[in-house]
């Protein structure tokens, strides 16, 4: 029975590692990290790969050792005397502090670099501002228009019935008149975007796996992130913060376009306002 357990643990450990190494689930389903289309994502991916390597080795070794000890010490002969682990507890404690401690410190420090690369750097002066508003259960986006100014928001004017999703007063606010409100987000490729985030109602989140950007919307707080997309294509923006019954369907599309396509798109959207 014990030997069976040892074998089972080994098999489970190996089978568990296979999809991680091959990034594939039977049936040719990809289960790896989605492709990276951002400039800052490479540090995150490296950090992830390093952690996976270290964690994977720890995982396999400790499961194998567990299995080996179960195999070896489960059927003692009647005369056997228990033996002490050479080195004793002190050795293990020191090993844990040294090995795991170093590992933690290294991961922590390098991880901090990847984190700081996103959050501790200011957006470039010429970055393009886009505003996003989250609400049950859709994202809406606002572009400042030719005047490059966002008009003020009036919560009491918000009306989904009249498609005034942001609560703009286009009759009185000069800056709002040329603002362009859209339901999908288009951005030019290789241009830094400064995304200004606020929530209309509850907690939501802005997650684009390919963009390596994940940030919650906090009602009452204006947050911002900045990023540069490097690959033209259509991606999904999903909400990851439980926000009610339509949470699963709260999404928008992100279209990364060439500058020319983007300009045409913006013109077309402006005409629809």
């Amino acid at each position, binding site marked *: 029975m014990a030997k069976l357990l040892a074998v089972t643990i080994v098999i489970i450990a190996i089978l*568990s590692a296979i999809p991680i190494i091959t990034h594939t689930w039977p049936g040719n389903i990809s289960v*790896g990290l989605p492709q990276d289309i951002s400039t800052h994502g490479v540090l995150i991916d490296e*950090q992830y790969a390093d952690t996976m390597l270290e964690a994977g080795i720890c995982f396999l070794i400790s499961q194998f050792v567990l299995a080996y000890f179960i195999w070896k*010490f489960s059927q003692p002969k009647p005369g056997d005397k228990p033996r002490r682990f050479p080195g004793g507890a002190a050795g293990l404690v020191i090993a844990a502090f040294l090995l795991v401690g170093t590992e933690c410190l290294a991961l922590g420090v390098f991880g*901090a670099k990847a984190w700081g690369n996103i959050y501790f750097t200011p957006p470039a002066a010429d970055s393009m501002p886009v505003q996003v508003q989250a609400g049950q259960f859709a994202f809406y986006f606002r572009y400042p228009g030719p005047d490059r100014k966002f008009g003020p928001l009036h919560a009491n004017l918000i009306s989904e019935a009249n498609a005034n999703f942001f609560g703009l007063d286009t009759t009185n606010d000069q800056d709002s008149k040329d603002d362009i409100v859209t339901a999908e987000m288009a951005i030019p490729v290789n241009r830094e975007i400064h995304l200004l985030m606020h929530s209309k109602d*509850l907690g939501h*989140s802005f997650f684009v796996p390919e963009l390596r950007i994940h940030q919650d919307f906090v009602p009452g707080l204006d947050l911002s992130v900045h990023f540069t997309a490097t690959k033209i294509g259509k991606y999904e923006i999903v909400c*990851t913060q439980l926000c009610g019954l339509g949470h699963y369907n709260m999404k928008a599309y992100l279209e990364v376009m060439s500058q020319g396509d983007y300009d045409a798109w913006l013109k077309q959207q402006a005409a629809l306002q």
Partner: protein
Amino acid sequence: MHDMSAHAVHHGAPTSFIRKHIFSLDHKVIGKQYYGMALIAVLVGMVLSWIMRLHLGWGNLAIPGLHLLSKAGAPGDVMTPEYYLQLMTMHGTIMVFFVLTTAPFTAFGNYFLPIQTGAEDMPFPHFNMMSFWVTFSGFIVLMASFFVSDGPTLGGWTQYAPLSAVGSVSGPGQGWGVVLWAISIGLFCVGQLFGSLNFITTTLDMRCKGMSLMRLPLSAWAWFITSVMGLGAFAVLMPAVILLILDQVAGTSFFVASNLVINDQLLPHSGGSTLLWQHLFWFFGHPEVYIALLPGMGIVSHVLVTSMRKPMLSHRVLIYSMGSLAVLSYMVYGHHMFVAGMNPISSLAFSFPTLIITIPSTIIVLIWLGSLYGSKLRITSASLFALGFISVFISGGISGFFLAQPSIDIMLHATYFVVGHFHLVMAVAAMFGIFSGTYFWFPKMFGRMMNEPLGKIHFWCTFVGTYCIFMPFHYLGIAGNIRRYQAFTDDYLMPLIPVHRFITVAALFTGAAQLIFLYNLIYSRFKGPVAPNDNPWEGTSLEWSTATPPPHNNWGDKMPVVYHDPYQYSVEGAKEDYIMQTSPEPVHSADEEK
């Protein structure tokens, strides 16, 4: 200290049925009541998870009879999005609070902590009785929310504000459902605070003669540390849910910011803080993970030592490590909020303690492995589950490396990776602790043995089954699969549905295997073979030196006197391969605590 136990608790054995079995002051009866409640709760929680899994695997599948549960939630047996979330929330709440906290901590702890410390009972038996009944009322209130007009709350077990604080305008179940949820959790906190108070006092003041703190078995230490954590954690959650109730019914705005608009209606709230709820909740929530886990660690260590026939490599190091886990668990809670809008510097500040918490966890695993080395391992259902615990604890713990780092958390936050991580390290590990403890202590609690072959079948199905369920969760998470989605309509999630189907099948199988356990438990309770003696596993701690089942005051006429460390196995020169704590037989060992 030693004198207290002789006269601190004096309540005579009850004679009426009600005082004996219902409103009992006896810690053993209360422990069994907790276990019974957890058993009912876990069955409900498991059935909920089956329904959820079926829906996730085959979204359009009508589950026959589902409309009987809720006509509005499942019209024509088709599950609505809100009903999925409601079941999910109830699954989480029931499992975390009423199963994982009660079964290993308050159920086994109530029964065995006084016995392992050599006490006659807990110091405040009335508080102990109230602890159960208040907790049980909490459970009833939570169940009642299934029957209010728009069903239970859908906000998830974390109940993030403002979704939970603005009333039914934010969704079905967000009015009365949330209020009942909050009342239930508030009651639960009160119950656990009473319990913790008793546990701490029992450990500190009720030990019998000769029982120094270091002579307490590891399970007793785990319960003691857990109860200290409970005091801190539940004392924060309780005011948090009270504020939440006020936001809901009294029009206050503790957690709701100004100028929020839902359904084109400007909410009347203003000036509250969204993040306040998250801070309060996770200040409780992270220690709660260890409250669920530590008793399992203690039970498993206790079972392992008995099965290995040798003491742990170091009793002290294990205790100190569990203690550091408890302390650190309060300093890491912010890792639940890396992308929640905290100052990004705080994310780093919470990241380092989270990474550091792997050190005591690693030490615990290494001590277990080091103790296994050179042991004379006996394979029983109890020890199988204890060994399985080590395996799942390693698997679940290692994924913590990823979630501890804010940069990687960008990719993994709120995905199935997190779900896989906490299910393995907290839920499955704690369940293995419960199973191990049940197989181990059943003979002492009921005077009968459980069926070993059935227990082993149960172990194999559960061990393989849980890995089949929870390992694929990690892969889904890496691929970006968001949790708490009732259907996968996104283009990049649809290809992953076959993985979900595999998990569903595994979950149904593993769940069904638990019925073997249930059968074994009930059958053995009434028809199992009578325990051959008071000490069927040849254990050394105090619970094995008293009668089976223990009498009302645990010890009969003669209070125990302790001479040794808890785990004197394979002692050189001893008559048998173990010396019980109460045995005056001398031990000549360098390790013996003074």
